[in-house]
């Protein structure tokens, strides 16, 4: 205190900084202090620029402070494993009372039919033909045979064009938090497209390449498209860019006396092409045009005739006549892309370089009630709703809110919490970076004591010694401050745990990369076989997954209102966390000990997975039934 006093005396004289037009700056006599503006991005910027890296250090400190705590929990969790066991079992039986509830819920009797396209596979060859080079007119007539009568029954059942005809053969047991989905390879996608094109082609009696254009125009909504075509065939064809003339098969021709409108070349041997719209250009220009569209602009589904203001779409058959194979390939890849983009039940796997798409019936409007995590064949887990990494149990909207909040606030909030107080009168945030305890808020001119937050005037003559902790004004101010800080602290509580799991998952992942080495050395040291050391791999994967889940439980919990359900949730969260930490602990043991720990690690891995299933099932059930109450609207 004495030190403060010394610094302060000279400051007393110019004490009242009435000159502060820079309003936000509160003054501490003697030295400058500054207020960080209200909790916004601006503040983040201000804090970052004015006190250079302080926020970061503070955040790091907070983080460092937390991690030992985290590690500390694990030994205790480990050593007292026996002690915990009964508790665990209690909770288990607690949740087993919940478990049957969870699992008895009727699982929708849809199997994710793995061979979705089997019915199609026989007719495939001809489909391929239709798409690429185009079939002969005879083929086309054949398919036309399967007439309009079949329309009703054909379209009664599978709306989404998913062709899951065998959906009720087996009812796979799905856990409450799992959703039905199907992974499609590029080939599957193309087959699915072709199947639909051929069906529509035979129903409407149009050539497949035209049906393809029609379907793309109608964004693959077959029912609506057929209806619209039946009601106004000509308008629909015009709008889709097809034209109504289907006579003759376009082919390249040499026409004497022809002058190409694009390059102005003439010549008697000039090869030319025109689609059914009749706009004729030389084949060179046509090719150049198509190449530029496909390669240059990445366009495929809506390439129009090169003719000025002609909106006829270049069909796959015409394209097949004109361009080289590599371009054709690119064209079909682009078409597949638009197919997946157009269909709500399909999404590309977001993993880098992954070519698969996932078919899932969850609609945008369902996302309030489910968190549709799917796993691609490339092993990547992602959310079908928002394509972010798996974020169960938190629903997409909350995840977005949380991420936004963290992006805006977390570093700043950490720093504010560690370094500032609020003016007891106007609640401006104030940083005191030295000087005395006699604070005058630059904004509202309130004078208070930094130590007790009480009115400075009540300090009387004992200016430099804040020994009046029980003063009324001080305690009131402290209560108010505590309230406003509580919400910040609450956020930080969840954020730090969220960030901790994220960080730990990363560390575990590093460890996982070393696992293989470990496994090899374990093999040689212990005489275990390759298969026998796989338990480390399993354990590592379980750790990753459980930490991912734990991480999002904290974001989820941040938005939950407190009630009985929240308590059950927190118990589940605690159990999973404890299990994960103790597994993590075991996992770090030196190689020679690992072989002896095998049974323990296997047990713990199974236990972690089980706790995760219980937590996720419980959360998903409540979400589905709208049981959770949240402290935000979303």
């Amino acid at each position: 205190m004495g030190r403060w006093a010394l610094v302060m005396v000279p400051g007393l004289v110019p004490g009242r900084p009435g000159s502060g037009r820079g309003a936000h700056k509160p003054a501490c006599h003697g030295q400058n202090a500054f207020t960080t503006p209200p909790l916004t991005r601006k503040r983040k910027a201000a804090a970052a620029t004015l006190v250079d890296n302080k926020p970061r250090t503070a955040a790091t400190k907070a983080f460092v402070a937390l991690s030992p705590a985290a590690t500390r929990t694990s030994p205790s969790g480990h050593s007292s494993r026996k002690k915990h066991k009964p508790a665990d079992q209690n909770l288990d039986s607690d949740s087993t009372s919940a478990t049957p509830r969870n699992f008895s819920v009727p699982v929708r009797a849809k199997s994710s039919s793995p061979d979705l396209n089997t019915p199609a596979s026989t007719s495939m060859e001809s489909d391929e033909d239709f798409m690429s080079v185009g079939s002969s007119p005879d083929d086309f007539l054949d398919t036309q045979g399967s007439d309009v009568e079949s329309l009703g029954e054909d379209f009664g059942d599978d709306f989404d064009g998913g062709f899951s005809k065998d959906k009720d053969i087996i009812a796979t047991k799905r856990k409450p938090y799992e959703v039905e989905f199907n992974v499609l390879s590029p080939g599957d996608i193309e087959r699915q497209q072709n199947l639909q094109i051929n069906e529509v082609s035979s129903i409407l009696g149009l050539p497949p390449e035209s049906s393809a254009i029609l379907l793309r125009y109608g964004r693959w909504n077959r029912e609506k498209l057929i209806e619209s075509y039946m009601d106004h065939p000509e308008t629909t064809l015009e709008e889709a860019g097809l034209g109504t003339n289907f006579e003759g098969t376009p082919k390249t021709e040499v026409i004497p006396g022809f002058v190409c409108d694009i390059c102005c070349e003439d010549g008697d041997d000039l090869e030319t092409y025109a689609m059914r719209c009749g706009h004729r250009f030389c084949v060179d220009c046509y090719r150049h045009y198509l190449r530029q569209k496909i390669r240059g602009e990445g366009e495929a589904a809506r390439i129009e005739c090169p003719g000025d203001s002609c909106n006829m779409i270049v069909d796959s058959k015409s394209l097949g006549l004109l361009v080289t194979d590599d371009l054709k390939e690119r064209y079909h890849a682009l078409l597949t892309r638009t197919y997946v983009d157009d269909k709500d039940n399909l999404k590309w796997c977001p993993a880098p370089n992954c070519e698969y798409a996932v078919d899932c019936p969850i609609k945008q409007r369902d996302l309030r009630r489910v968190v549709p995590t799917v796993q691609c064949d490339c092993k990547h887990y992602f959310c079908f709703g928002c394509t972010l990494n798996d974020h169960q149990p938190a629903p997409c909207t909350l995840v977005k809110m949380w991420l936004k909040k963290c992006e805006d606030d977390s570093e700043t909030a950490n720093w504010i919490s560690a370094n500032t107080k609020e003016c007891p009168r106007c609640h401006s945030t104030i940083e005191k970076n030295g000087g005395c305890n006699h604070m005058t808020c630059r904004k509202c001119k309130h004078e208070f004591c930094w130590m007790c937050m009480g009115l400075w005037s009540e300090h009387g003559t004992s200016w430099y010694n804040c020994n009046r902790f029980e003063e009324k004004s001080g305690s009131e101010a402290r209560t108010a401050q505590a309230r406003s800080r509580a919400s910040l602290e609450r956020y930080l509580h969840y954020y730090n745990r969220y960030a901790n799991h994220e960080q730990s998952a990363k560390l575990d992942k590093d460890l996982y990369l070393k696992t293989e080495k470990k496994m090899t050395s374990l093999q040689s040291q212990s005489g275990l076989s390759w298969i026998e050391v796989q338990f480390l791999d399993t354990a590592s994967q379980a750790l990753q997954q459980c930490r991912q889940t734990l991480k999002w439980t904290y974001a989820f919990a941040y938005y939950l209102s407190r009630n009985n359900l929240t308590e059950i949730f927190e118990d589940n969260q605690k159990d999973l966390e404890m299990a994960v930490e103790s597994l993590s602990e075991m996992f770090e043991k030196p190689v020679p000990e690992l072989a002896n720990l095998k049974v323990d690690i296997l047990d713990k891995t199974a236990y972690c997975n089980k706790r995760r299933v219980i937590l996720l099932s419980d959360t998903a059930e409540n979400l589905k039934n709208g049981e959770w109450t949240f402290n935000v609207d979303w």
Partner: protein
Amino acid sequence: MGSQKRIAKELAELVESPPEGILVKLADESNLYTWHIYMDGPEGSPYYNGKFLLNLTLPTEYPFKPPTVSFKTKIYHPNVTNDDKGSMCLGMLRADEWKPSSRIQAVLQFARQLLAEPMPDDAVEGRIAEQYKNDRKRYEEVAKEWTRKYAVDS
């Protein structure tokens, strides 16, 4: 590629029978790809009596890629940027709207039409567009003033 032939043909047509109020010249006789366009302000518009110089640049990929048009004479117009570039935003000149068989003549006529009837919904100068919609009188005054100042030979 046939681009030179096509350009030469279009140029010849435009020089021989120029559209109303439009005069076309090569900026440099040895270069087919840069044109000077002299455009008369259309009657009934605040640009009337003004003579505007425009630059038309053809890409080497022409006619598969669209030409670009810019005003060299300063002009107060919602669809022309109010800077030294004088860039013009024409729907038909967007890469995905442009067709290889579209003609420069159509572009020029369209540009002149735009002087008569600005399209405030596709504006590049939001403030001028706003004024055009809400305070037509003031817009016309300023446009006339600018025309007098920059586009009329004194």
